[in-house]
C-alpha cells in the first residue's frame, strides 16, 4: 500500500531547504508533537497554547468530530461518543476488548470486521480511526506552527507493542496523511532526548510509566549509537489504573455501591486524578464533589493511604525490571543511569521505589511528559536528511519472539525476542502430500510454548506450489522484520525457483484491501483538493526519483552500465519527466514504477560494489561518497 507522501505542492525540494519533519508521541492519555527548530527540539503548542492534547475524540451526528480538550469537555455529558484510551485497543481483537475495562465504558460492534469498532453517533469507529483523528489534529498543529507541509513524522510506540499494534499505528498514520519516517520505541526516544544532552556512554534504564502502558528498557549508549539491550513491560498498566483505583476507593469511602451513569464515573475519575496530582507535592489531598442531590463525595486522602492503594500496581512494574536485567545479561549495578518517563513517574512513591530498586537517584531533568516527543523530533530531523553529519544511529530490537504454529499447537520460534532489527530468517518447509499445491502458515508472537497462549498475528496461505510427490518441493519462507519492527513474509519454491504467492489474513488488523477502502472513503469525503494534493504529491515523488537516480548515474553510471543499458534508463527518466508535465497522478505513478524497475539492476550493482569496497576495508569516507544517501539527495 502506498503511503501518501506529503510535500510542498507542485515543487521539488530546493537544495538545502529544510525538510519539515516532526516527532509524535501518540499517547494513551495525551498526545504531543515536537520539532527541531533552529537546532533545538521543542514541543509545539496548538492554537489554544497547549503543548499536549488529550487523546480523546468526540463523535457527533450533527457536526464534525472534535479532538483533544474540546472532546474531553464532552466526556461527562456524552460518554459513549467520547472515545478515550483508544491506544489500548490498537491491534486488539474482540476478546481483548471484552476483557478490557473499556468494554464497560463504551458500546462495541464486535462482529463488523476483523477488529472491533466503537459504536458512535457518527457511525462505527475503530481504534485506528480514532488514532488517525488525533494524528490529523497534531499534523494540523505542526503545519500551522512550522508554516509548511510535513515530509514525514517519527511516531513513537511502546517498546512492548507487538506487530499488530505497530501495524495499526502505521495504518492510522496513513489514514491521517502522515508519512511515517520511522516507528520508534518510546524509551529509545527518551534516551535520544537525554543522550544528546549528557553524552554519557554506558547502560541506561528507561522506566516509562505512562497513562496506559508500562515499559522498561535497557539501552547501551556508545558514541551516538543507542542499542536496545532488552525491553519488557505491560501493555495494560499505567496512571489510568491509579485513577481507577483511587476512584473506587473514594466511592467505597462514600458508601456508594452504584453510580447513576457513565458520566458520573467520569466525573469521579477526574476527581481521583486531581487528588493523585495533588499528592505529588502534598502530604494530604482533601476532595469534594457533589454529584447530585443524593451523592456527595467528600473526604481526604493521605500520601500513605494513596501509596497503599497503588502499591500492588507499582509492584507489577518490578518483575519486568528484573526480566530486562536478566535478558541483557548484566548486573543491576551495571546500570549507570535511570531515566524517568511518563506522567505517572511524578508520583513520589514511584520515584522513591525505582531509585531504591536500582540503588541510585533516578533522572527527572527533562519533563517526563515531553521527553519522548522531543527525542522523536530529534530522530525525525535526522531521518528527513536535515543533519547529514549526524552520528545518531538507533539500533532497535524486536520486543516479542516471532514463531510459527507447528503440529499439536506448539510454537516454533523463528526470531527470538530482543533480536536486533532489521533481521531476516529463512525457514524451509516441504509438502507432506502428493500433488499438494498450497500450504498454510500461522504466525504468532509471544514467549509461551503453546499457540493458544501467544498472540495470533496472521495466517499466511502459500499457493501455486508446483504439484509434485510429497516431500519433493522445498519451500523457503523468508520472515523479514523491518526497522519499524513489522513483519513481512515471502516464499520461494527452491527446485523451480517459483515464488509462491501469499494470502495474508491479519488476525487483529486491517488487510491492505480494507485500508485502501478506508483511504478511498476518506478521500471521497474530501473535495477536489485531495485529488490535487495527490497529483502534487506524485509530482514531488517523481522529481525525487529523477534526482536520486540522476545523481547516481552522474556519479558512476557508466561504470556499472553498458551503453545500451544506460540509454534504456535514460529513456525511462525522459518518460517520467514527460509524465510530470501532464496532470495524471496514475500516469506519473506508472512512470515511476517503470523507472524503478528498469534501474533496479543498476542500483543493485552499485550497492554491491559499495559493499565490496566496504568489505575490502576501504576508507569509509570514500564509501560515503559513492553511496547515494539521504544526505546526497537533499544536497544535489
Amino acid at each position, binding site marked *: 500500500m502506498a503511503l501518501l507522501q506529503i510535500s510542498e505542492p507542485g515543487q521539488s525540494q530546493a537544495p538545502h531547504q529544510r*525538510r519539515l519533519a516532526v516527532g509524535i508521541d501518540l499517547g494513551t492519555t495525551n498526545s504531543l508533537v515536537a520539532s527541531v527548530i533552529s537546532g533545538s527540539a521543542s514541543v509545539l503548542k496548538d492554537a489554544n497554547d497547549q503543548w499536549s492534547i488529550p487523546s480523546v475524540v468526540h463523535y457527533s451526528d450533527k457536526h464534525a468530530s472534535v479532538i483533544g480538550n474540546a472532546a474531553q469537555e464532552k466526556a461527562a455529558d456524552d460518554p459513549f461518543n467520547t472515545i478515550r484510551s483508544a491506544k489500548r485497543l490498537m491491534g486488539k481483537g474482540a476478546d481483548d476488548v471484552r476483557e478490557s475495562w473499556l468494554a464497560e465504558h463504551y458500546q462495541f460492534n464486535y462482529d463488523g470486521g476483523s477488529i472491533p469498532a466503537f459504536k458512535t453517533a457518527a457511525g462505527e469507529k475503530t481504534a485506528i480511526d480514532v488514532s488517525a483523528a488525533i494524528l490529523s489534529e497534531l499534523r494540523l498543529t505542526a503545519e500551522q506552527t512550522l508554516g509548511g507541509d510535513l*515530509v*514525514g513524522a517519527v511516531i513513537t510506540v511502546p517498546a512492548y507493542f507487538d506487530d499488530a499494534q505497530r501495524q495499526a499505528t502505521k495504518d492510522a498514520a496513513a489514514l491521517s496523511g502522515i508519512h511515517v*519516517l*520511522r516507528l520508534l520505541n518510546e524509551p529509545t526516544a527518551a534516551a535520544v532526548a537525554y543522550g544528546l544532552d549528557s553524552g554519557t556512554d554506558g547502560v541506561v534504564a528507561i522506566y516509562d510509566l505512562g497513562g496506559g502502558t508500562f515499559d522498561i528498557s535497557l539501552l547501551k549508549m*556508545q*558514541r551516538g*549509537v543507542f542499542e536496545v539491550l532488552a525491553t519488557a513491560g505491560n501493555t495494560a498498566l499505567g496512571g489510568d489504573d491509579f485513577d481507577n483505583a483511587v476512584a473506587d476507593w473514594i466511592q467505597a469511602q462514600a458508601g456508594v455501591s452504584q453510580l447513576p451513569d457513565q458520566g458520573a464515573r467520569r466525573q469521579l475519575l477526574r476527581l481521583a486524578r486531581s487528588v493523585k496530582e495533588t499528592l505529588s507535592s502534598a502530604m494530604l489531598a482533601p476532595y469534594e464533589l457533589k454529584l447530585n442531590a443524593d451523592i456527595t463525595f467528600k473526604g481526604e486522602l493521605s500520601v500513605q493511604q494513596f501509596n497503599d492503594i497503588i502499591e500492588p500496581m507499582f*509492584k507489577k512494574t*518490578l*518483575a519486568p525490571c*528484573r*526480566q530486562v536485567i*536478566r535478558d541483557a545479561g548484566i548486573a543491576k549495578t551495571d546500570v549507570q543511569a535511570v531515566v524517568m518517563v511518563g506522567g505517572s513517574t511524578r508520583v513520589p512513591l514511584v520515584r522513591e521505589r525505582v531509585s531504591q530498586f536500582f540503588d541510585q537517584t533516578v533522572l527527572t531533568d527533562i519533563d517526563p511528559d515531553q521527553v519522548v516527543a522531543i527525542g522523536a523530533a530529534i530522530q525525525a530531523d*535526522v*531521518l*528527513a*536528511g536535515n543533519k547529514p553529519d549526524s552520528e545518531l*544511529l*538507533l*539500533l532497535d530490537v524486536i520486543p516479542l519472539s516471532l514463531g510459527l504454529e507447528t503440529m499439536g499447537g506448539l510454537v516454533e520460534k523463528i526470531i527470538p525476542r530482543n*533480536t*536486533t*532489527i*532489521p*533481521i*531476516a*530468517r529463512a525457514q524451509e518447509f516441504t509438502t507432506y502430500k502428493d500433488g499438494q499445491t498450497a500450504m498454510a502458515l500461522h504466525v504468532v508472537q509471544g514467549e509461551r510454548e503453546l499457540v493458544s497462549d501467544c498472540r495470533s498475528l496472521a495466517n499466511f496461505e502459500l499457493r501455486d506450489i508446483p504439484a509434485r510427490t510429497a516431500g519433493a518441493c522445498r519451500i523457503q519462507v523468508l520472515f*523479514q522484520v*523491518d*526497522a519499524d519492527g513489522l513483519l513481512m513474509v515471502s516464499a520461494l519454491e527452491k527446485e523451480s525457483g517459483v515464488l509462491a504467492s501469499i494470502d495474508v489474513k491479519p488476525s487483529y488488523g486491517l488487510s491492505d484491501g480494507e485500508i485502501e477502502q478506508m483511504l478511498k472513503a476518506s478521500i471521497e469525503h474530501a473535495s477536489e483538493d485531495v485529488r490535487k494534493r495527490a497529483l502534487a504529491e506524485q509530482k514531488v515523488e517523481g522529481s*525525487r*526519483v529523477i534526482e*536520486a*537516480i540522476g545523481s547516481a548515474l552522474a556519479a558512476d553510471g557508466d561504470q556499472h552500465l553498458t551503453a545500451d543499458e544506460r540509454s534504456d534508463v535514460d529513456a525511462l527518466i525522459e518518460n517520467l519527466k514527460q509524465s510530470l508535465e501532464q496532470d495524471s497522478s496514475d500516469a506519473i505513478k506508472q512512470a515511476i514504477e517503470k523507472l*524503478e524497475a528498469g*534501474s*533496479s539492476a543498476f*542500483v*543493485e550493482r552499485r*550497492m*554491491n560494489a*559499495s*559493499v*565490496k569496497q*566496504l*568489505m575490502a*576495508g576501504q576508507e*569509509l569516507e570514500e*564509501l*560515503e561518497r559513492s*553511496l*547515494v*544517501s*539521504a544526505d546526497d*539527495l*537533499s544536497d544535489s
Partner: protein
Amino acid sequence: MQVDFSNNYFELFELPVQYVVSQDHLDTRFRSLQRYLHPDKFASASDAERRWSMQAASFVNEAYQALSKPLSRASYLLSLHGISLDEETDTQMSPMFLMEQMELREALGDAPDAADPYAALDKISAQLNNGRRDSESAFTSAANNADWTEARTVVRQWQFLEKLNSEVQAQEARLDDAL
C-alpha cells in the same frame, strides 16, 4: 533482489576464521557497518535502495549475532567446515555427560521447593557456567587441531547446557512473577 554478500561472516567483520575473536573489534566493526547500511540512512532514498539497505542491515545483524555468542560462533565455524549439527539419527552422547545432565535437571525440578529457591538456582547456574567454560576451551583446542568430529561432540553437549540454562532463567522469571 539478491545481495551479493559473501557467505562468510568472519570476512564481513575482517576477522580470521577462528573461534577466538575480539569482542571489541566485533562491536566496532558492527557499528561502522551499520552506520552505512542501516535503513535510517536511507529514509529518503528510492524503494530499491531502501529494500537493499534493509536486507544488508539484516545480514549484518545476523552475522553479528552469530559471531557474538560463543555457542553460535562455534556452530557457525562447524557449518563453515561443512559439519551439520541437526541430524536426528545421531543420538549418541557420552553416558557420563547424560548422567550429569539428569542430575542437573532433577535439581532444577526441585529448586522451586527449596528453602531458598534463588540460591538453589544460583548453584545450578554456577555448575552450568563451569560446563560452558569447559566447552569453550575443549572446542578451541579441538578446532585448533582441526578435529571436527570432536568439535562437533563438544558443541552438541554445549547445546544441552545452553538449553538447560534458558530453563533456569525461565524458572527464575516464574519466581520473580510470583513475588
